[in-house]
């Protein structure tokens, strides 16, 4: 069932609550990027993609999503749980011993919804391209989606993959960049500037969409719909999605400081006061 914009916003609010509670629960994890990418992942799983939560690894006839920046696992796990891949009660085990919800996503523990391990950055686009090649061989017209951090684009493998996809006319591939301008050591423009990303992807042969409002649900759905409409036209599609790291929790927003830091009890309470419980906490 496709959720409408209002329902998507409700879902996003609950996912954000889950994120801060999960990270608080183990005093570890990455809340900043998770909060910033919540609207994107919620739109993808509850409106855009054709996917089956009963989960088959090979995903024939289904759209696929690969999370390349695996450190934002809290938002991924929460979205998968609410989409029905596993029970949301399992979110309480995040990053704890014997959990399927490892610090970074893995297939190793058999968690439904995860098709590749990620965390060591720069590898997800290659994997997605491989999956798209398999779909083409199988005569499967479904779409393969990916998400990458902007700092992650500093990895060389990304550009190997970025060169391969247009050369091979992989036009059912939509790669989104979480363009929040932040990485662990500070603003991306200070650490290692990305330059003109749009021009870079275009020079490699990609169709590029820019969305300046990556935390506005209607805008996120619209840009993803636009990207879908551009599939099958001979080029892979990149979306440069401007998001705010920490979006939705005022004291976590606009800074790299909450990249990998957990809130204490007081901060958790302050954060939850800003996020409506819409679907019931785990």
């Amino acid at each position, binding site marked *: 069932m496709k959720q409408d914009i209002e329902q998507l916003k409700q879902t996003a609010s609950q996912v954000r609550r889950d994120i801060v509670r999960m990270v608080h629960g183990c005093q570890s994890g990455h809340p900043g990027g998770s909060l910033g990418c919540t609207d994107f992942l919620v739109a993808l799983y509850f409106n855009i993609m054709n996917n089956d939560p009963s989960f088959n*690894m*090979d*995903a*024939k006839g289904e759209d*696929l999503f*690969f999370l390349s920046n695996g450190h934002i696992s809290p938002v991924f796990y929460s979205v998968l749980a609410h989409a029905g891949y596993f029970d949301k009660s399992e979110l309480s085990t995040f990053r704890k011993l014997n959990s399927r919800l490892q610090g970074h996503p*893995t*297939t*190793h523990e058999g968690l439904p919804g995860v*098709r*590749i*391990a*990620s*965390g*060591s950055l*720069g*590898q*997800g*686009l*290659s*994997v*997605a*391209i*491989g*999956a*798209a*090649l*398999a*779909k083409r*061989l*199988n005569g*499967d017209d479904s779409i393969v989606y990916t998400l990458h951090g902007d700092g992650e684009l500093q990895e*060389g*493998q990304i550009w*190997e*993959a970025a*060169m*391969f996809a247009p050369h*091979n006319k992989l036009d059912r591939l939509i790669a989104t960049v979480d363009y929040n301008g932040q990485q662990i050591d500070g603003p991306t423009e200070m650490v290692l500037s990305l330059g003109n990303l749009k021009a870079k992807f275009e020079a490699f042969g990609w169709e590029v969409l820019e969305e300046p409002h990556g935390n506005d649900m209607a805008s996120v759905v619209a840009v993803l719909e636009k990207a879908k409409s551009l599939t099958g036209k001979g080029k892979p599609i990149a979306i440069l999605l401007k998001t705010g790291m920490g979006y939705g929790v005022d004291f976590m927003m606009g800074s790299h400081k909450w990249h990998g830091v957990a809130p204490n009890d007081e901060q958790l309470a302050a954060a939850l006061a800003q996020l409506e419980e819409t679907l019931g906490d785990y």
Partner: protein
Amino acid sequence: MKKYTYTDKKDTRSGFGDGLLEAGKRNPEVVALCADLVGSLKMADFIKAFPERFFQTGIAEANMIGMAAGLTIGGKIPFTGTFANFSTGRVYDQIRQSVAYSDKNVKICASHAGLTLGEDGATHQILEDIGLMKMLPGMTVINPCDYNQTKAATIAIAEHHGPVYLRFGRPVVPIFTDADQKFEIGKAWMVNEGADVSIFATGHLVWEAIQAGEKLAEEGIDAEIINIHTIKPLDAEAVLKSVAKTGCVVTAEEHNRLGGLGDSIAQLLAVNTPTPQEYVAVNDSFGESGTPAQLMTKYGLDAEHIIAAAKKVIARKKQNS
């Protein structure tokens, strides 16, 4: 000593190329990727037969490994091809995360392994690849000894579910195993039964071990020669059974003595039945330019060095008793 002869010589990489073609005929899910070394990897026949199932990646090995992992999602059985150095050291983290840790059914096929790559020198002569690959949980590591065995191994790994590292080489070497052999992953091959010393050899060193065995026999030394083509999982039963009989061991491999076949055997013996062992392997150094034969002699990887190692370890056994 059982007699081994040969009428033909071929490179093991041609065994891979012909095996890949056969695997492709048997299973339509078999696909291949190559990073700009199609000729060196002998993949031309596969590409001609199945052009839509081949992916030229360009000189971009990290992307190749990641794409291979992705191709398994959708049921494909990808074989990647490049030199051993670029198949392992260059892409270790991609193999670790996207293939091994992710439990993906990828076959990493590596040519020009070891010193016998020859004149290109140490930049290309990886001697650490067996160690790198065998340390990865779940990875199967295979180093066949001639054209026929490499072809059979290539066909066998397509039928085996799980990540595999298949290592072979550049030079033309004798073909002495059966053309119609069935390759059993993890099952050592008894080349010659003997009583005085166990020689465990892999890859190009198996033929050298046979040459050594013949000369040792002339001197009255009865060597047992076992081909360990699968370094992981190691055929522990075959090793322990042989050592129970001979009481001393020579290991022979075209690899650094650190982390290769010799260390796998030493570890097995140390915890089961500590046994005198001599290594025929590269002594923790890089290689250099030269012809394959010159390099194998200079770095101590030939029949003469196996003979010397066998005599030395037999003497150590006698000292201990």
